[in-house]
Each structure stands twice: as C-alpha cells, then as structure tokens.
C-alpha cells in the first residue's frame, strides 16, 4: 500500500521568479500588473529584491484516488486525505529546494500563500494565470477562489542576499502552539 502510493503520488510544481518593485499600493512584480498588497507581503519580503511565485499540486489523479478510496473504505480515505495534505507541502519543499538551487548564495524566506495574513485569497485567479497553472499543472480556480484539484498550493517565497529569519514555520509561530498533542509529547511536526 505504502509503496503503491509512493509510486503513484507525484507532486508537480511550476514557478516563476520576478523582480520586485515597491509602489504605494503594494509590491509589484516587475513586467506584470500583479500586486502583492498588504502588511504580510511587506513584512515577509522586506529584505528581498526578487520573489519566486510557485504552485504545487498532487493533480487530478490524487483526487480520483481519494474518491475511489471513499467508495471503498472511508477510514482509509481519511488517512489518505491527511497524507495528501502533507505530500503537497512536501512538494512545496522540493520546489523551494529547486528554486534555491537556481540562486546560489541567495536565501529564501518562509513561503506564504494567498489567504495567509492579510494577503487576500482573491489574488488566486491572477496568481494562477500568471503561472499559467492550467496549462502547466492542470490546476484551475473556482469562482470562490478554491483550487481544483484539491491538493494544490500556491505560494510566494522571497529571495534575499541576507539570511532570512523564520516567520511562519516552526512551533513559535504556530497557532496550535499551546494545544498541539505532538508538542506535549516533546515532538514536533514536519511543518
């Protein structure tokens, strides 16, 4: 089962790197009309001259597997669903490593996504159009800004010539800091 899944689940990703221009309305991606408005982007990208926008998905095949699993074994499906969320995050990690590899000597900020902090979720359609995720990854955005296939993530990671402090990842920044069951046992999760 585990082997079958490892072989079948394949995160795909795509990214583009843009120079950043600071304007009154927010941070503009050079050569586009695309703005990253708000305090979150400002804080996260404070020391960055460039940023990578990326998208990662487990694809329609994973959703099909999840549907098929729900028709057979709901308990297994719940576990598969949770694994899918972890796998797509892992795909994002791999995408980040690839980006970092293209920019030796540069440092990536933690990644952040539309819907995080004050970065509006309504950026999603333009974000996805900019990366051409329909063509590149088979991902589409609904009119309520949700991505299909469901295990899909879009994110921004700033590129800086200085080391970047953690601002999102790690227990210190986690909203479950005080309630986390893993943490009570002295462990931590992968995120």
């Amino acid at each position, binding site marked *: 089962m585990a082997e079958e899944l490892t072989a079948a689940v394949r995160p795909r990703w795509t990214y583009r*790197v843009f120079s950043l221009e600071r304007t009154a309305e927010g941070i503009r991606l050079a050569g586009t009309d695309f703005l990253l408005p708000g305090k979150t982007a400002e804080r996260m990208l404070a020391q960055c001259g460039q940023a990578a926008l990326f998208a990662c998905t487990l694809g329609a095949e994973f959703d099909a597997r999840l549907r098929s699993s729900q*028709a*057979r074994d*709901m*308990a297994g*499906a719940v576990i598969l669903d949770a694994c899918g969320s972890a796998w797509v995050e892992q795909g994002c990690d791999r995408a980040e490593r690839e980006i970092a590899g*293209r920019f030796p000597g540069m440092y990536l900020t933690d990644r952040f996504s539309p819907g995080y902090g004050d970065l509006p979720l309504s950026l999603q359609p*333009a974000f996805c*159009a900019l990366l051409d995720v329909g063509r590149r*990854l088979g991902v589409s955005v609904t009119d309520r800004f949700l991505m299909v296939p469901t295990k899909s993530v879009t994110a921004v990671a700033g590129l800086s010539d200085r080391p970047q402090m953690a601002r999102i990842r790690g227990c210190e920044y986690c909203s479950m800091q005080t309630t986390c069951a893993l943490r009570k046992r002295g462990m931590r999760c992968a995120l």
Partner: protein
Amino acid sequence: MRFEHLDRIVFLDGAMGTVLQQRGLPPGGQPELLNLTDPELLLSIHRDYIAAGSEIIYANTFGANGLKLRSSGHSVEEVVTAAVSIARRAAEGTGARVALDIGPLGELLEPMGSLTFERAYDLFCQMTLAGERAGADLAVIETMTDLYEAKAALLAVKENTALPAFVTMSFEGGGRTFTGCTVASMAHTLEGLGADAIGLNCSLGPDQLAPLLRQLCENTRLPVIAKPNAGLPDPVDGHYDMGPEDFARALVPCVEGGVTIVGGCCGTSPEYIRRLRAALADYAPSPRRSGGGSFVCTPVTPLRIDGVRVIGERINPTGKKRFQQALLENDLDYILDVAVAQEDAGADILDVNVGFPGVDEVEMLPRVVKKIQSAVSLPLQLDSSNPAALEAGLRVYNGKAAVNSVNGEAAVLERILPIVKKYGAAVVGLTLDKGGIPQTAEGRFAIARRILDAALAHGIPREDVWIDCLTLTVSAQQDQARETLLALRRVREELGLQTVLGVSNISFGLPNRGLITQNFLVQAMGAGLTVPIINPNQKEMMDAVAAFRVLSGEDAQCRAYIDRFTGQETKTAAPSAAAPLTLEDAIARGLKSEAAALARTALAEEDELSLVERRLIPALDRVGEGYEQGKVFLPQLLSAAQAAQSVFEVIRASIAEKGAAPVKKGHLIVATVQGDIHDIGKNIVKTVLENYGYEVTDLGRDVPPETIVQAAVEGQVRLVGLSALMTTTLPAMEETVRQLRALPHPPVTFVGGAVVTPEYARSIGADYYAKDARESVEIAREVFG
C-alpha cells in the same frame, strides 16, 4: 478542405500567447480582449504566419468562452466574431483557412470539479455557433487534458455546425494527461465520436512528443496532428529552450512516423513555421499501420480485447430485491458498492442495467453512469433496449463504451445502431430475431452475419461488433449447449468477431450449479469466447478465467495466475484461537465481513429491528464514547461505522427478501454549501449517520441554496446538515440557512466544518452546531427521538 485522405503535409500556425507576450502583453493577461482593443496587432501576427507558410491559422479565440469572459463585460459572440473576422481578413486572398480555436474552459468538469458536462457543452455551443456564423472554416479543440471536456466540445461542434473538427490534447512525458487520460483512450474515444483529425499539442517539445505521437498513430485511422512547444520553458524567465532549426529537425521523425498535420505551440513563432516548411518540403504523408483491434475504455483504463475480458453482470435489478429497492429509493451509493466489489474482484468491464418498473431509465442511466465513473475506472457496457436511455447514458459516458444490445430484427437495428455510431461505442448483437432464437448454430450464425452487415452499413467498424450466441438452460433444452458453442466458434473463426456470452443461465434448475456453469464457461472459452458475462464475485468463475489465460498463453509467465493463488492458503487458514468474536467486538474492531457473518447468524434468533436497536447501536455508541474521550481516533470510528454498514446491508437484504418495510429512523439531508468543493468531512458525517440507521440524502458539494431548499421541501425532510470548510464559503451557508428558515415548515438545521464555530452557527440562525460526526448523531437523536 477534406482531411480523410491527405496526400500532403498540412501546416498549421505557431503560438499566439507567447508571441503576444514577446510583443508586450504582460503574462497572465487575457489575450482574447485584444480582438476588440488591438485588432491590427493580431492581424499582423496572422499575416506573419501565413507568410511563413501556415495553411491553417487559429483565430484568437482560445479562451473566448462564457466562463473566462464572464467579468470582462464582453459577450462570447462579440469576442469570437471579432477574432474570426480578423483572421479572415488576414487570410483573404491567400488560400489560408481560419480555425475557430477552442481551449479548455478554465474550470474542471465533474467529478474533479463541479462544472457539469451539460453546462460545459452549452458553453462550447456558444463558441461554435458564433464561430461558424463569423466564417470559420473549421474548429480546433486544443490543449485539452480532460477527455470528458474534449468530448463536450466535440459534440458541440458536431451537433451544431458543419465545421470539420480537429482535437489535440496535452500529455506529460509519461504518456498521460494531467487527469490520467492515456493516448489510446483519447484516440479511440475521439475517433468514435467523429473527430476529423486528432493529435497532441503543447506541454512538451517535439523530441519528447515523438514516442507519444507514434502511439497515437498506432491507435487511430485519422490524420494525426503535432503542435509541440519550442521545448521546455525556463521557470525563472519563461524562455523556451529550443530554437527554430532544432524544432523543425525534431519534427521530421514524427512526420516519418505518420504525422500529417504540423505546427507549433508555446514558444514558437513564424520563424519556426518557416523552418518547418523548409525541413518538410520533400516529405509526403508516410504510410500508416492504423488502428484496428477491439477496444473499449475510460480515460484512465484503455482495454484492448486481445484475450478473455470479463464483463461483470451484477449491476442489474433482475431477480435481485435489494438492487430493485436501491433503484426505487435512488440509492446510487448501493449501486456504486456493487460496481466497486466487481472491480475489486477482477472484472474488466461492467454491465449496467437499471431497467425496472417504476424507474425512469432515461433519467436514471446517465445518473448511474456518472456515479460509477466518479469512483470506478472500468469501462462500462450500457444495457438497455430503450434508445433514449442508451443515448442519454452514452452521452455522459467518459470514454468508449459498449452497448448491450441489438438483435437481428431490422427495426431494432435501425433504432439502436445510429446511436452506437454517433457515440462511437461497441455493440453487442444477440443472435435472435422476430422468429425467436434459432435452434441451430447455422441459424444463429446467419443472424450474426446480418447484424455485422447492418453495423458496417451504418459505418460501425467490424471490431466494434460483438456477437452473443445466447446461452439456453441445459436442463430444459439439452441439445442447445452444443449449438451455442458451435455458433460461437463459427462467429469467431469465420467472421473474426468478438464473442459475448452470458453463461450463468446454463445451469438453471440443476443442483451444484457452479460446477455446470464453470464447465460451460471453460468450454465456451475453448470454442473462442472472448467476452464472458459472469458474476466476478464467484471465485470459481474467475479461477476458471485465470486458468484459461495461462493455457492460452495470454498470461505471460503465468504471472497473474501465480499472484492470484500464492499466499491464499495462509490467508484463509488462520482462524483466531482466542475467544469467539461477538458482533459487538467485530463492529468495534471494524471487521466488516466478520460483522456481516455474525449478523446473519443473529438474524436466526432475533428480528431486524431488535438487532439494530439492541446490538448495533449500543456497539456504535461505545466506540463513539471512546472517540469523545480521545481513546479512539477518527479512522477507527469510521472503520466501526463501516462494519456497522455491512451489518445494515445484511439487515436491508433480509428485509427486502421479506418485502417488509425498511428500518428507517429518520430522513435527513447533508450537503457541502455552494462554492465549497471540500466534501470529505460531510462524507464522514454521512457514513456515520447512515450506520446509525438514518436515511441520508447526500446532495454533494458546491450545492446552491435553492437546490437544498427544494430537496428539503420535496422530501419533507425534518433535518438538514450543512458543511463548509472555507471562510469564503460561509456566506453561502448563511444564505442556505436563511432560505430554509423562511419555509412555512422550516427543517431543523445543523452546521459544521473547519471554519464553523458554535458562535457563528448561532449568529446565522442554525439550530445546532456539530463539532464532528459523532455530535451529528446526537443531534439526529434529539430531532427524530
């Protein structure tokens, strides 16, 4: 322009989008609006392509559909008309043809997304009607990754216009599209639906597309199109890595392999087309080893009939009370369970028959097809004598299906064959006619030949004609088993057709039926039976097929046989040495088959209702309490619910057998609200509630408030559960609750989901907040008592 017998290579144009970006359009913009704002720019690009040698240019209509234009302030008609007119102007006096370009709609179709097939079809119709009116010479459907969407678009062209239709899809290097569609599935489905040429575009460079193009040429008789990218884009700057010369050179082997229509996609420019023309100046279409071979499929499961392929017969109400009850109650989940069980048992194709008094087949067959295809990947055989039902089913079927059946009667052939042809299905012909079933092999063979001739006359290729020589009960007509086998052998050997046979009837009325049926199946396969219709859940039948595949050489190195039979003894021969399992234990531990067996035993001593009330529900409650205390986790809770479900199945079957009223503790509706596509939480609630004996109508996900209100009113439902996962969809939850409360007899509402809180539930006027599936059971108890 006719495309069936191309005697030369035809040249398409290259990219539009990336050329526009080179000329200053920012990435992510909507290039279709340029048809209105900058026609001269488009005109010059079209002219450049024609000057470079393009004979067919694509009007700038790729994304000019009602979804993508919805907030642009412009209509589809307006944008398409402008785009086609610009291309027409460019083509004037040059002999170049103008194609209406149809790209993906930008939202995913069901079951992946929530766009229905019917709505997709309507959206494509807007484009095709406007395109033909504006003067397009042909339609090209391109960059598709979902075969279902390509089918909707192709039907929209074929049913509403006289335009020839090209269809190209985008594949990954592994030979599948993003949605898992294979090259073979694409080829057979689209050829069957009447495409004029098919091919591959976008996603990869010509070198990487070459092996896929070869596969495509082997799977179709149609002209094959290649419109690759200029290699791969550099993610950092978006620049494509293959120059015009390399591009042209890499396409030459594709043309040598049978491709006849060529052009470029992302990253190419007029210069690429110029080099391509030069490189291919001396080339004529290469001879092809085309298509052929019997084949049915879904997008992800291509099934070549080149050995014994089993059709599962269980989706059929005849003689099955539980199935009949499910049909009458609209219980599609039960039908899906029957499909899943057969897939897991090794069936290759599933027969689907939903004909039963009181069931509207025309409405039911397409619903069942969609339901099965949402979770089962096997090809289907639609089984009905009602032409309208067959058409409705074939229309929404994703892939190439089979139809069961026609017979030798002229009126039947005339009624059904045009539908089979239109949707590119395979068809089963029964060797009987007005005069009944001929008693001799000779008579049946004659009808088989007549059916074949009729099919050929309708343009259905012979590999799509499957003949059923009919099984008669051997205890009633003992001489007929031999005649069936004789007829079958002749159909196979003399006509070379696939042979179908429902074998189970043979043993009717005899003791130890399995033995007779198995023997008949073996003899029939020996006589040339390729597509037996059997119950795949009967192990001895599937065993016989597995053995036959070894002896016929189809199962190379006996691999499948060895897999099937090794380790089996150890699996079955391990009865627990511990204390005997009780029904309560089996449920708590999530042991489905054990729980069902124990329930069967228990029914000998107590009635159905008492089994539910005294044993099943208390057992579930104990698990539920453990869950609340954090001793049991969600997967275990669900396993227990599923074991309870298997007990319920035993109870339902027992009640259906007796014809008594089903156990129903109350009827409720669950739905994920409009705009939300996350439904696993709602599905968990449904699973748990059903296994407490509640009748749950699941309206699915992304459900508009009006649909929920209508269902609540029509079903006189007293309890409605709503789920939402995203903050963005909470307003839809609020609106649904508001509309439900406005009813003269408002149902009780409960709401839940990741972002829902008790305070929010109160603020929108919902009656209950359910933290989890377990709490929804408590709510149902309070409401229904």
